[in-house]
């Protein structure tokens, strides 16, 4: 138990603070805000148009921000031999991956939720819409984190891992995007429920898929 706590703390510090060559939690966050800031420049200052499309932009930005740190989620530790050393100590890969999903979520999902009011202001969303966006991010980002860690484990060690990871993660994240952005439509209350369901499904599968990928990579 204490070993797991030690590992989780290291995961979290590495993902939040970053390390040379790893970048921290600031990068996805700045990316997210940059998209929210650029969008009004691109489509013009029509407040009605911005308010109607803004929430969708927030979701696209969140998805892309989740993909940014993919190449440093698993690869550096695999490369440095950490996973082998944990395996020698009998620590299950499933647990390690669950911890990493949690750390990844804390390092990108929570900052995005904190930045969402700012993005909502830039895009001219009203209070009710912001509330729905926040709720959607709370339900959806754990799923994004789960998909991210799974893809990172699958592509770790591959030569074009980073680019491939992005391409693989996007289709898997499409349901989260559809339900997340859809929950903002006037009749979209069911969207949040479906969002939560897809998020839970991703969370349930991810630790096992990612652990299997790590083990298969040893062969």
């Amino acid at each position: 138990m204490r070993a797991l706590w030690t590992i989780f703390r290291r995961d979290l510090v590495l993902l939040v603070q970053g390390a040379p060559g790893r970048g921290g939690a600031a990068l996805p966050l700045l990316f997210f805000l940059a998209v929210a800031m650029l969008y009004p420049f691109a489509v013009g200052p029509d407040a009605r148009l911005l308010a109607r499309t803004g929430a969708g932009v927030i979701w696209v930005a969140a998805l892309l921000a989740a993909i940014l740190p993919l190449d440093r989620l698993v690869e550096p530790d695999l490369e440095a031999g950490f996973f082998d050393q944990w395996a020698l100590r009998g620590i299950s890969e499933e647990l390690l991956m669950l911890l990493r999903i949690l750390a990844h979520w804390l390092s990108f999902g929570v900052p995005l939720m904190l930045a969402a009011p700012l993005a909502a202001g830039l895009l001219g969303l009203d209070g009710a819409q912001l509330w729905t966006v926040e709720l959607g991010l709370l339900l959806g980002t754990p799923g994004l984190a789960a998909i991210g860690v799974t893809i990172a484990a699958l592509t770790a060690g591959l030569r074009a891992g980073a680019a491939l990871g992005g391409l693989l993660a996007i289709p898997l994240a499409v349901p989260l995007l559809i339900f997340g952005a859809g929950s903002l439509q006037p009749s979209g209350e069911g969207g949040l429920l479906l969002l939560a369901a897809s998020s839970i499904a991703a969370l349930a599968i991810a630790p096992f898929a990612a652990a299997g990928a790590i083990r298969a990579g040893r062969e």
Partner: protein
Amino acid sequence: MQPCRLAARDLACRRGDRLLFKGVGFELQSGGALQLAGPNGIGKSSLMRILAGLLRPYAGQVEHDGLRALSDERPALDAHRPLGEALDFWRRIDRAGEARADFGLQDLLDVPVRFLSTGQRKRAALARLAASGAQIWLLDEPLNGLDKHWSTAVQAAIEAHRAQGGIAVIASHQPLQLQALRAVSLLDHMA
């Protein structure tokens, strides 16, 4: 230290569609040491990973009583962290006592791991292994990058570990000065 045992029976290893070796077998009891020899690419590191349980053998099996620890070319220490913190991470996970051998790292504990030389990094990896409290040491090229002084010191540490009842398996193409050292040459087991 608890008595320990490591036995390999009729091990074979396949990488890709190439059979690297077959029929490798040995048994080590507490205090035993074995050197795996053979030229580059013959499968020493693969055999080490099989003995560590990280790689499935193509045939045969490995039996072990006691904890195993592996030191290979990847030190599993955070490159950007000071050496002391990087080692403490594993010490907290292993919850073993203070290491008996510190491999002359006392003065380097404040230095980030990425600034260490090859030999210093090797000694750091060995210190991590020694501090783990595992009985069965699996050492893949432990003397690589070490100068004469530290090469002797590391072998002394292996002897001390054996005297306490531990087992050491060493993959190395350098001659080792260890008491009652058994040897397996993978050249004899080429497929």
